[in-house]
């Protein structure tokens, strides 16, 4: 049977993914993901929630929404041609005066499976090459593939401890250092970490939790209307993906433009002193540890202003994102029945009025 691929479809293998714009509800999650896309330096998103709440759907859908990146053809680390060579392998040739071929590639969104071995994450000696040709060659792992993009770890709370340590190290340094099996190399690994998990099945180590810029709680919608809408859209998508994607194409394009223009605007967004002070007071009031909370709070507020297309951060921006920027940074109190979001809302009401 001969199949005919239209050009567009041929070039976008992800085109059968459920569109981000058609996700019902989940405002917080969608917002957090957009913020992380606008400012990757915020440090990732942790998504708490039951299974089957559409966490994975949202993250996979994000891949289709992200603007493409310019990269060097053949570079396993998607190196940026505008920057000095960062990786030792393919890009090193640039130093030898060979001008690289630059291509446009989709921003990587890498799924890290729960059972992934260290080899697959870090990369390892290319066994095939070693055995057959007797050459020592590095086979890049998931960290290499995720460079300049997103790394998604579903059920991150169940991850092996040694992998968690490794991720912490790489996330902090932006570099993957490989010293194993006679290999010795380093390559860039800057990515936005997106984790998801159900806290009822195992808590996340506080050190890892703190690395995330944002955290959101996701629940299965309990509103009948929303649930019906989710099912109806899903059925429509499954029945005829192309038609469904067509219906949402305009909205997808709008969101994509919003992300791109917000990323451009980001540096221009001003932060009034009053807002800086408010952020500091809030952090003190809720007792969030360290300066990280405050810094993240400001960055997130700025990204929010940029998404809304305004040039200055307002108190409204700050208040709207404080729970997701600070919620996971509060010291745990085993005896406190209310969640941390409640504590933050309470503190804000006291500081800034209702």
């Amino acid at each position, binding site marked *: 049977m001969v199949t005919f691929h239209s050009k567009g479809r041929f070039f976008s293998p992800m085109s*059968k993914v459920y569109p981000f714009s058609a996700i019902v509800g989940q405002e917080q999650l969608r917002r957090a993901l957009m913020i992380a896309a606008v400012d990757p330096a915020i440090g990732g998103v942790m998504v708490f929630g039951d299974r089957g709440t559409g966490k994975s759907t949202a993250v996979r859908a994000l891949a289709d929404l992200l603007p493409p990146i310019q990269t060097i053809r053949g570079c396993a680390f998607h190196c940026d041609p505008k920057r000095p060579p960062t990786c030792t392998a393919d890009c090193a040739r640039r130093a030898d005066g060979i001008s690289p071929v630059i291509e446009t590639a989709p921003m990587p969104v890498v799924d890290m*499976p729960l*059972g992934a071995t260290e080899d697959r994450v870090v990369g390892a000696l290319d066994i095939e090459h070693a055995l057959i040709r007797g050459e020592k060659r590095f086979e890049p792992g998931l960290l290499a593939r995720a460079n300049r993009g997103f790394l998604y770890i579903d059920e991150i709370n169940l991850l*092996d401890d040694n992998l968690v340590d490794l991720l912490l190290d790489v996330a902090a340094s932006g570099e993957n250092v490989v010293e194993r099996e006679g290999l010795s190399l380093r390559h860039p690994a800057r990515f936005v970490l997106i984790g998801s998990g159900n806290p009822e099945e195992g808590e996340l180590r506080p050190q890892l939790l703190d690395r995330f810029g944002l955290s959101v709680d996701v629940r299965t919608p309990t509103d009948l209307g929303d649930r019906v809408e989710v*099912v109806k859209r899903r*059925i429509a998508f499954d029945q005829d993906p192309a038609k469904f994607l067509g219906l949402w194409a305009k909205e997808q394009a709008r969101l994509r433009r919003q992300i791109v223009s917000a990323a451009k605007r980001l540096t221009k967004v001003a932060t009034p002193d009053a807002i800086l002070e408010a952020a500091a007071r809030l952090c003190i009031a809720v007792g969030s540890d360290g300066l990280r909370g405050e810094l993240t709070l400001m960055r997130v507020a700025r990204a929010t202003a940029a998404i809304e297309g305004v040039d200055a951060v307002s108190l409204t921006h700050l208040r709207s994102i404080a729970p997701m920027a600070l919620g996971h940074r509060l010291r745990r109190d085993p005896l406190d029945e209310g969640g941390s979001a409640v504590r933050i809302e309470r503190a804000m009401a006291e500081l800034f009025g209702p």
Partner: protein
Amino acid sequence: MTTEGEAPSRIADASLAAALFSVDPSGLGGVTLRAGHGPLRDQWIAAVKAMLPEGAPVVRLPFNISDDRLEGGVDLAASLASGRLCKQASVLEGIDGGVALLPMAERLETGLAARLAAVMDHAASRADARPAFGLIALDEGLAPEEQPPTTLLDRLALRVDLHGDFDRTDKITPLPRADIAAARDRLAHVAEPEDALVTAVCEVALAFGVSSLRSVIFTLKVARAHAALAGRSLLGQADLAAAARLVLAPRATQAPVAPEAEQAPPDPPPPDSPPPDASADDSASPEDQPPLDDPETLSQEEAAEILVAALRALLPELDAPAPRRRPARMRQGEAGGSGGGAPTLSMRRGRPIAARAGPLNSGARLDLVATLRAAAPWQKLRAAPGGEARLAIRKDDIRLRRFVRRAELTTVFVVDASGSTAFQRLAEAKGAVEQLLARAYVSRARVALIAFHHKGAGVLLPPTRSLTRAKRFLADLPGGGGTPLSLAMDASLSLALSERAKQRTPMLVFLTDGRANIDGRGEAGRGQAEADALTAARKVGAAGVRTLFIDTSLRARPDADRFARAMGGAYAFLPLVESRAVAELVTREGGRALGG
């Protein structure tokens, strides 16, 4: 055959599930076939094979399949032997349109379940690249908490339970292959459900505590397959009823009762509930039904009524026996992480330690450098005279990596909830659980709680390391009644063994005064009760499970000590149960359990 006014027999529904699955294996994701090894299970699988298209592949997945085998990779052994690259195909290669059998699904690791789920999701969403297949998860679990990981369960539309009382004459009978093929062809022409229907299914699912929306979608898909099988192009009441029984009923976690009773377990429906006519259909006799093909579509209310009636008819079976058990809504995830325990050797995960020689089979990982080192001294000898210089590696050179990972401790509290002091004992036990979990935050130990009173023992808190979860499960605790100590020991032993099967170290902590007065059959009577308890205690001892018996009676009595000794465990006398003291004792004993 079913009688008028009753739900079809379980065997009829099991046959129906096989037929529906055969109509649309990949669309429905698959089936959880909960059954022991036996003729019925074999018949069920044979029936599916007989109904799938001629030559459709049926692949049995290896237990604990490796990534390479799941997704394809390099075949190392063959590459080494031949000196050129040999690829190993994925076991799922060529499975398109077929069925995969997953043995011992209840023991499936969470990580592997997640990977399988990802493969299935891809199969569903990117049909051009990945093969589409249906999965039959063979679930041999016996205890309620022994079940496949939720990640997987959620993706398999149908659940068939072949445990329990079936007649010798009961048989799973396949429908003619041609009928199934015709239904498969018709499936695309069955109208998509009306909005009213979608709403009704959503509504009923919510009322019965089915929170996953995937289940709602599966309900509609199963209804469509049922309609296709019956030759209808519109969903009728029989289709909805069948879908409710096969998809929603096994997932129901509550019966729609008055809101104030929300915390209570599902009440059995009143015995005088009206006979649910709607569900009195089965696929073999669609012509008995009123002409459903009539364009008259069901209203939302009608659809909801049909669904509820079908569920009601099955609910008595869903209700758990005494004392009470929360439906195993979520399964404790299997952590690969290390805990605060003694190290155990693992071939796959953890911190690497020295390599050793061994066969390169499933799960083992090659240590390349060590292998080359082992092969190096022999190179000259092995080199063929005049042949080209190539590394010669033999089977014996192969070195495998080993990893060390720490054993994780699961502390199971077995709490006496009988009599007048039940409340205090339970409250302090709950306190101890929470303290241990707050502390275990770093060490990643697990805690479970079994309570026994009246005529039974039940798992109130399945093994967890989550404080959040413990708080929710232990929000309200039962109490009062007799002391079925032997039942408690049996229940705790089975939980301990299932933990051990998951490579964890169980420790049982009994909080009781040891005054057994309900025997192993649930009858009152001190003499028999004590004899039974002693037998049960010896069983625990024989299994070698670490125990700590905390005697909570006001004066130390020989009975309790006797039980403790029969179990071969530690004994502590603690008349004033206090959560902090309990937690201390348990921590100390837990350290020993892992050390020894």
